C-alpha cells in the first residue's frame, strides 16, 4: 500500500475560507467544493486509490491558472494538476489538503499552421482532438497512447506519453516545439516557440515527463506530420517466445523500422481472441503484429521482406492484410487487449516497465514463475521494437489480499526490469504507483539531485506532492 503524507491541519481548518477566496478570483462555475461534485476527481486511472481533495478548480485561461497557483503558493496550499485523469500510475491522485487544478475547460485549438507543420492547442485538448483537427488535410499528431480518445495533451506533456507508433515517430518529447509554462509562483513563461531547438538549456525537455513536479503547462505547440500514403499490418505467430524474439531481432537487423511492432503472449492472445474474434491463432505461444507504411507497392515490398524474414523462424501462421479493413481486423484484438483482460478478470493492474529487447524470453519466463508463485494470472503485451513491456496482472479488487498480492507481483516485475538493464516505467510515469520503487533504479544521491531540481522550481514542494519521489529521506515532506 502506498502512503500519502499527513494533510496540513491548518489548511483543512481553513477550507471554507480557501473556497471563498477561490470563488472570488474565478468565475462562479470554476470552483467545486461540494463532496458529490468532487467525486469524479477523487481518483484517476489507478482506481484502487481514492482521496477527496480540498477543492477542485476548472480554470479557462492561463491567467486563471496563474492566479490560482499564485494564491496557493502564497498560502502554502498543495496543488494537484489534472488533465483527463487517465493516469495509470496515480499521477493525478488528489491529496486531502490539495486543490486539484483541472485543465479540461482549456480545450481550444488556437492555431493550425500547415505550412510550418505545427499546431498550438490548450492543455485540455484531447490527444485525438489534435489529429482530428488536422487529418482533413492529411496531417496527424504522432504520439498515440491507448487512452488517446480521452487523455489530454497537457497530461501527455507532463507524463511524456508514448504509444504503439513511437518506434518510428518518437514519444511526446520528440514532438513538441514549445509550451506556456506557469510556475508555482504564478509566473507565466513561454518556453520554446514555433520553431525547433531554442538555444539555452533544454527546459522543454526537462519539463516534458516531469509529472507535474515543476509547474503547469497551459498551451502546447506540437509538431504535426503529414501522414503516409497508407499503412498495412501483418500477423505472425510462433510456437515459442524465444523464436518470436529472434524474429523481431532479425526484422530490426534487416534495416526495416516498422511503424509498429507489437508482441502478445499466449494468455493475451487468448483473452483478445475471446473478446474481439480477430482470428488470432490460439495454439501460438507468441504473436507479432507488424505495421508498415507507404504506397500500396511499398507496403507489398516491406511486408514481403518481413514475411521472408519471419518464414526463417518456422512460424505457426502468418497473415498479411490485403486491405485497410483486414489491417483493422488484425489490430482489433490488440487495441482491445485491456478491455479483453478486463472481461476475464474482475480487475487488473497494467504495469509498464522497459527491458532490453533481448531479455524478453528471460523476463517472460520469470513473470510466468511469479504468476504461479502469487497465484494471479498475467497477460503480456509488449512494444517489441522499443522494449516497453505491459504485463496485465489480474486480481479481484473486492479482496484486499488479492490487491496486495497484485501490487507485490507488479513491484517484483518492475524490479526485474531494472535488474536486467531496463527501467521502472516506459510511458506511464512514476506517479504514486512506482514512487517507492525509485530507490531500485537510482542511488540516494541521484534522487537527491532530482529533488534538488524539483526544489529549484518549487521550493515549498507544493506541486503534486508525494508523487515520483519516495517520502522517506525527503525533508520537504513529513510522511
Amino acid at each position, binding site marked *: 500500500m502506498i502512503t500519502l503524507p499527513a494533510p496540513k491541519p491548518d489548511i483543512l481548518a481553513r477550507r471554507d475560507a480557501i473556497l471563498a477566496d477561490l470563488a472570488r478570483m474565478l468565475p462562479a462555475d470554476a470552483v467545486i467544493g461540494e463532496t458529490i461534485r468532487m467525486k469524479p476527481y477523487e481518483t484517476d486511472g489507478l482506481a484502487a486509490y481514492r482521496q477527496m481533495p480540498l477543492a477542485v478548480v476548472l480554470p479557462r485561461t492561463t491567467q486563471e491558472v496563474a492566479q490560482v497557483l499564485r494564491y496557493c503558493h502564497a498560502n502554502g496550499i498543495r496543488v494537484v494538476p489534472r488533465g483527463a485523469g487517465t493516469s495509470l500510475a496515480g499521477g493525478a491522485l488528489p491529496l486531502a489538503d490539495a486543490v486539484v487544478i483541472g485543465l479540461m475547460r482549456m480545450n481550444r485549438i488556437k492555431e493550425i499552421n500547415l505550412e510550418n507543420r505545427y499546431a498550438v492547442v490548450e492543455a485540455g485538448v484531447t490527444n485525438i482532438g489534435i489529429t482530428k483537427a488536422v487529418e482533413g488535410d492529411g496531417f496527424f499528431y504522432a504520439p498515440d497512447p491507448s487512452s488517446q480518445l480521452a487523455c489530454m495533451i497537457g497530461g501527455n506533456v507532463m507524463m511524456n506519453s508514448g504509444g504503439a507508433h513511437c518506434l518510428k515517430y518518437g514519444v511526446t518529447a520528440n514532438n513538441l516545439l514549445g509550451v506556456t509554462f506557469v510556475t508555482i509562483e504564478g509566473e507565466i513563461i513561454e518556453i520554446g516557440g514555433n520553431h525547433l531547438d531554442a538555444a539555452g538549456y533544454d527546459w522543454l525537455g526537462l519539463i516534458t515527463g516531469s509529472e507535474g513536479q515543476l509547474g503547469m503547462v497551459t498551451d502546447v505547440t506540437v509538431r504535426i506530420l503529414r501522414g503516409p500514403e497508407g499503412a498495412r499490418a501483418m500477423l505472425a505467430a510462433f510456437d515459442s517466445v524465444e523464436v518470436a524474439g529472434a524474429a523481431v531481432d532479425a526484422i530490426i537487423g534487416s534495416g526495416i523500422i516498422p511503424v509498429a511492432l507489437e508482441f502478445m503472449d499466449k494468455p493475451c492472445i487468448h483473452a483478445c481472441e475471446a473478446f474481439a474474434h480477430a482470428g488470432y491463432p490460439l495454439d501460438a505461444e507468441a504473436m507479432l503484429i507488424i505495421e508498415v507504411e*507507404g504506397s500500396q507497392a511499398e507496403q507489398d515490398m516491406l511486408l514481403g521482406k518481413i514475411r521472408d524474414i519471419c518464414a526463417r523462424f518456422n512460424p505457426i501462421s502468418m497473415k498479411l492484410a490485403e486491405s485497410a479493413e483486414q489491417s483493422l481486423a488484425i489490430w482489433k484484438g490488440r487495441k482491445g487487449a485491456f478491455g479483453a483482460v478486463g472481461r476475464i478478470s474482475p480487475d487488473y493492474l497494467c504495469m509498464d516497465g522497459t527491458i532490453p529487447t533481448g531479455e524478453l524470453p528471460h523476463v517472460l519466463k520469470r513473470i510466468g514463475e511469479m504468476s504461479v508463485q502469487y497465484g494471479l494470472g498475467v497477460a503480456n503485451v509488449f512494444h517489441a521494437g522499443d522494449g516497453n513491456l505491459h504485463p496485465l496482472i489480474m486480481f479481484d479488487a473486492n479482496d484486499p489480499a488479492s490487491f496486495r498480492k497484485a501490487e507485490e507481483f507488479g513491484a517484483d516485475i518492475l524490479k526485474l526490469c531494472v535488474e536486467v538493464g531496463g527501467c521502472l516505467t516506459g510511458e506511464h510515469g512514476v506517479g504514486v504507483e512506482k514512487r517507492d520503487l525509485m530507490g531500485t533504479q537510482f542511488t540516494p544521491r541521484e534522487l537527491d539531485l532530482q529533488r534538488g531540481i524539483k526544489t*529549484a522550481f518549487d521550493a515549498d514542494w507544493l506541486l503534486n506532492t508525494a508523487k515520483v519521489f519516495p517520502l522517506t529521506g525527503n525533508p520537504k515532506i513529513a510522511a
Partner: protein
Amino acid sequence: MSVIAPETEEALAAEVTRAHAAREPLCIEGRGTKRAMLRPVQAARTLSTRNLTGIVLYRPTELMIRARAGTPIPEIEAALAENNQHIIAEPPDLTAMFSASEAATLGGVVSTNLSGPRRIMWGAMRDHVLGIRAVTGEGEVFRSGGRVLKNVTGLDLCKLLTGAHGTLGVLTEVTLKVLPRAEATGTLAIRVPDVAQGIAALSAALGSPYGVSGAALLPEGHASLGSGVIALARIEDFAESVTYRTGKLRDELAALGEATLLDTPASHAIWREVRDAKPLDAAPEEAIWRISVAPSAAPGVVAALRAAFGAKLLLDWGGGLIWVAGPAQERAHGAVMQAASAARGSFTLFRAPASLSGHVPVVPDEAAPLAAIGRRVKATLDPLGLLNPGRMRG
C-alpha cells in the same frame, strides 16, 4: 593553460572534487575542437575527457550504443557502419569551421546538441540520448536515463545536460539510440526563383507523404549545381522507395521549379556539405550565427540580414535553421538578434572571436523568472559555478 585528461571516470571525478575544494574553475572539454563556440570560458585549467574513450556496449538489434564521452565520433560512426546503422541526428563535422586538427568527441557533440539535416524528420541529438553518466561540480558521479528506448522514470537530466555546453556536469558516458542507414538516398535539386519560393517548395516537400529527411536551401547556388537559388529535398529509404518517392515528389513540385535528381553518391556528397555548413563559405575571420525560426519567417530574416550587412546564408530544416556568416562586429550581431526576435525565433552566436563573443549575449536572454530557476538548477548541479564559467552567458 594546463590540461588535465584523466583516464577513468573515477579519476576525473577526483579532479573535480579537488577543484571544488580549491574553488578553482575548470574549462570542460573533449578535444577542444569547439573551443571558439559561444563565449570564452573563464578558467585557468582545462579538464578534458579525451582519454575516456571506447565503446562500452553496442547492441545493433536493440538500436543502442554506449560509449565513453571522449570517444571520437568517427570511431562510433565506423562501428555503426559495420552494422549498417548510423547516428540518427547526423551531427555536423565542424573541424573545418573551427580549424580543428582532430575529430570531435561524442561528449562534445552531445554537450552542444549538434544536429544536422536529418533533424527535421528524425529529431535532434537530444532526442536520441537514452542515458548519461556525468560528474557534478562537486565531483559526484550520477546517472540519468539508461539503455532502453522508452524511459520516463524520474526527471530527464539527459535532456537538461544535452546542449548545456558542459555547464551543468561533465559527461563521462553517453548512450545513444541509433537506427539503420537507408539503403539508398535520392535528392531533388530544385531551381527556384527566390528564397520565398524555395521555402514554399521545401514546405510542400515536408508536407508531402514521402518522408523527406532533408530540406535545405542554397541561396547563392552551388558550384556543381549551378548559380541561382537551389532547394534540396532528400529521401532516404529502400532503393525502390527512393525511386518511387522522388518521382512522385518531383511531379508534385513541378510548378515550383525545375528539378534535377541526384543519385545516392551525389546525395551523400551534397548533404555532407550542407551538414557541415560548407556552402556558407564563411571566411576565417567572419562570425557565424545559427538562427532558428518557423520556416515561413525565413525569407524575412534573410532579407533583413542581407540588407543589414550583406550576410552569407545557408538554410536547412525546411528553412527553420538559418546559418549566417558576416563581419564579427557588434552591428552585425545586433542585426541578427533583432531579426531573430522579430521572427519570434532563437539565435546562437556560433563562432566568433572573443573580441565579439566576450561582451554580447551569444544566446537569447531568458525571462527573469526562468533565469532565476536556471540559477537555482545550476546551483544544484554546480554550487560554486566552477564548470565552464562564462561559456553560455556572461
